[in-house]
C-alpha cells in the first residue's frame, strides 16, 4: 500500500539515490557549484528531451530532433549576421514548421511517426549539408555575445542556461497540467479514439505535439550553437539517444498518456548523473559503454510506474 503511494516518486528517489552514491564516492561532487554546473551543461539535451516528451506523451516518437538541432546550428550560424536576434525566430519557426510536417505525415497520411520523423530528419540533414557547404561554420564572436551572450553567462554560481531550462520547463508544465492543450494531449495519448469521439480535433493536437517537439529541438540547437559559437551538420550528433533515454528513464513510457515534462527533467538529471558517475568512479574506458547500459537498465527498472502501464509492450 505504501509502496503504491511512493511509486510516482520513484524517479525522484532514484535520482537522489544516484546523487548520494556518487557523493559518497567523492564528496566534492555534492558541492552546489558543481551540481549546478552539471545541471547547466545538460540543458541543450534537456530542451530536446522536453520536446520529445510531447511526441512520446501522445504515443509517438520524434527521431528528427537531432537532425533538426544539427540543421538549426547551421541556420543560426549562417543567418546570425544578417538577421541578428531575429535568427532565433527563424530557427524556432523552422523547427515548428518541420515538426508540423512530421505531424501532418503521421496524422493525415498515416505514416508512423517512427518513419515520418526519421524521414523529416533526413530532410533536415540534407538542408544542413547544403546550407553549410558541408563544413563547420563560425559565428562572429562579438555579434554572438551581443545578441545571445545572455544565454550562456553565469550569475554567481548559477549558469544562465538553467534559467532558460527552468523557464521552458515551467511553461511546458503549465501547458501539460493546466491547459486544454495539455489535457487534450493526455487524452490522445491514453485513448485516441475516445478523444476523437468526444469531439476533440485529434489531428490538430497531434500535429501540434510534433510541432512543439520540433520547435523545442530547434531551441536546443540554437542554444547549442550559441554555446559553441558555431554550427555544423553533424555537431548535435549524439543527442538523440540520450534524449530519448532521458524521457524514458523519467517515467514517460512510449505507450503515451503517462508521465510528463517534470519526469523528463528528472530523467535528464539521472542521465547526467550516470554520465558523471563514470568519471567519479573511474570506470575504465573500455567498460564505460557497458556500465552505462547496465546502470540504465537498473534505473529504468526503478523509475517506471508499472501500475500505470496496462500492458508492457
Amino acid at each position, binding site marked *: 500500500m505504501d509502496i503504491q503511494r511512493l511509486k510516482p516518486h520513484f524517479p525522484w528517489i532514484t535520482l537522489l539515490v544516484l546523487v548520494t552514491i556518487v557523493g559518497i564516492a567523492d564528496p566534492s561532487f555534492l558541492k552546489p557549484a558543481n551540481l549546478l554546473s552539471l545541471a547547466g551543461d545538460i540543458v541543450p539535451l534537456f530542451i530536446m528531451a522536453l520536446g520529445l516528451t510531447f511526441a512520446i506523451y501522445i504515443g509517438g516518437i520524434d527521431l528528427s530532433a537531432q537532425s533538426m538541432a544539427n540543421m538549426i546550428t547551421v541556420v543560426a550560424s549562417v543567418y546570425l549576421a544578417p538577421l541578428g536576434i531575429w535568427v532565433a525566430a527563424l530557427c524556432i519557426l523552422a523547427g515548428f514548421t518541420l515538426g508540423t510536417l512530421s505531424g501532418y505525415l503521421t496524422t493525415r497520411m498515416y505514416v508512423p511517426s517512427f518513419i515520418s520523423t526519421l524521414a523529416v530528419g533526413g530532410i533536415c540533414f540534407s538542408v544542413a549539408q547544403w546550407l553549410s557547404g558541408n563544413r563547420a561554420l563560425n559565428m562572429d564572436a562579438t555579434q554572438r555575445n551581443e545578441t545571445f551572450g545572455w544565454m550562456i553567462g553565469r550569475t554567481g554560481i548559477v549558469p544562465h542556461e538553467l534559467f532558460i531550462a527552468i523557464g521552458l520547463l515551467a511553461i511546458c508544465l503549465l501547458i501539460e497540467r493546466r491547459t486544454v492543450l495539455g489535457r487534450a494531449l493526455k487524452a490522445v495519448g491514453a485513448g485516441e479514439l475516445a478523444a476523437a469521439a468526444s469531439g476533440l480535433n485529434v489531428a490538430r493536437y497531434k500535429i501540434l505535439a510534433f510541432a512543439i517537439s520540433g520547435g523545442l529541438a530547434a531551441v536546443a540547437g540554437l542554444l547549442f*550553437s550559441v554555446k*559553441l559559437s558555431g554550427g555544423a551538420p553533424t555537431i548535435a550528433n549524439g543527442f538523440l539517444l540520450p534524449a530519448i533515454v532521458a524521457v524514458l528513464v523519467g517515467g514517460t513510457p512510449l505507450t503515451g498518456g503517462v508521465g510528463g515534462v517534470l519526469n523528463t527533467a528528472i530523467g535528464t538529471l539521472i542521465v547526467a548523473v550516470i554520465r558523471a558517475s563514470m568519471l567519479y568512479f573511474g570506470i575504465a574506458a573500455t567498460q564505460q559503454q557497458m556500465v552505462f547500459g547496465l546502470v540504465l537498465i537498473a534505473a529504468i527498472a526503478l523509475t517506471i510506474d508499472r501500475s500505470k502501464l496496462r500492458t508492457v509492450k
Partner: protein
Amino acid sequence: GGAARAAISDPAIAWSYRDRASAYWNSVVSGGEAFVESLGKSKDSLVSLINEGSSEKSLADIKAFLAKTGGKCAIACDANDSPNARPVVEAVRDAGAYISTIWNKTDDLHPWDIGDNYVSHMTWSDEKPAEQTARILFDAMGGKGGVVHLGGIAANNPAIERLNGLKNALKDFPDIQLLDAQPADWDTTKGTELMASFLTRFGDKITGVHCANDNIAYGVIEALRAEGIENMPIVAYDGNPEAVKLVMDGKLLATVFTNPHWGGGITAALAYYAATGAFKPSEEPKEHREFYGPTVLVTKKDAADFKAKYLDAVPSYNWKDFWGPSNGQIKYK
C-alpha cells in the same frame, strides 16, 4: 593572454576523445598511457573522457572533470567538432587547468589568445600526404583512367583536406578523371556498399580507388573481392596495423601514418608539463603552440621497415621532446 596561476603539483591527466571502437583512437590512448607511465604512474591514472561523437558530451565530460579535480588537471583533447573547441578551452582556462588539443578547432581560435592554459594545438596537414598517395595511385594506374574517392564524414576537416589532396594531384594528371567522390563516413560497411554502387555506375571505368582512411579501404577491398577483382590500385590513410599488412601484401598501394601513439603521448605531455610549470607556454614561439604532427608515407617498399620500427615494438619516445618530430607551424588559408 591571461596569466597562468602558480604551477600545479601532480595534476590529474585526462584524454578526451571519440571512442574506443577504432584502431586510431586506441593508438592515441596507448600513447597517453605510455606517457603517464613515464611519470612512474600506472596506466589507469590516465582518465578517459569518451564523447561518442557527441560534442555536447565532450564539453560536459570535460567540465565534470574540471569540477572533480578542482582545476588541478591537464587535459589532452580532440573536441570532436571544431566549434566545440572554443567552449572547451574557455572552460579549462576558467578553471585554471591546462589543455592541449588536436585535430578540431576553428581557424580563429589560437592558444596565444587564450593564454597559458591553452597550451598547444596539433593537427595534421592531410592535404599534402593525401596528394602524395594520389600520385602513387595515379602512377600505378599508368597516368590514365578513372578514379573514385570514398570520403569521411562530409563535414569533417580531415575528410575535406584528403579530398583536396586528391584534387591537387589530379591537376598534374590530365588523363585521369575523378569519376565521383562520395562520403563513406569513415566506415567499413559503408565503404563496401558505396564501392559496389560505384562499380555498377562506372564499371570498368574505375581503374583506381582513393580512400579517405584505412577502414574504408578494408570495405573497398572486400567489395572488389566479391567481384573477383584483385588488382585494383587502392590507396588509404591512417597507417593502421591491418592496413600496413595489406600494403606489405600488395593489396594496398600506400597509406599514411600519422603516428597517433606519439600524438597521444605528446599532447598529454604538453598539457602536463605546462601545468607543472616545467615550461611556460607564453614563452614559446608560435610554432610551438600550433604545429603540424608528423606524417609518414607507407608504401610497399618501406612497409616492412616501417612495421618493424613503429608497430612490432612501439618505440619509446622522449616525452619531453615536445616538438622534435613535429612538422612546422600551422598555416591557414
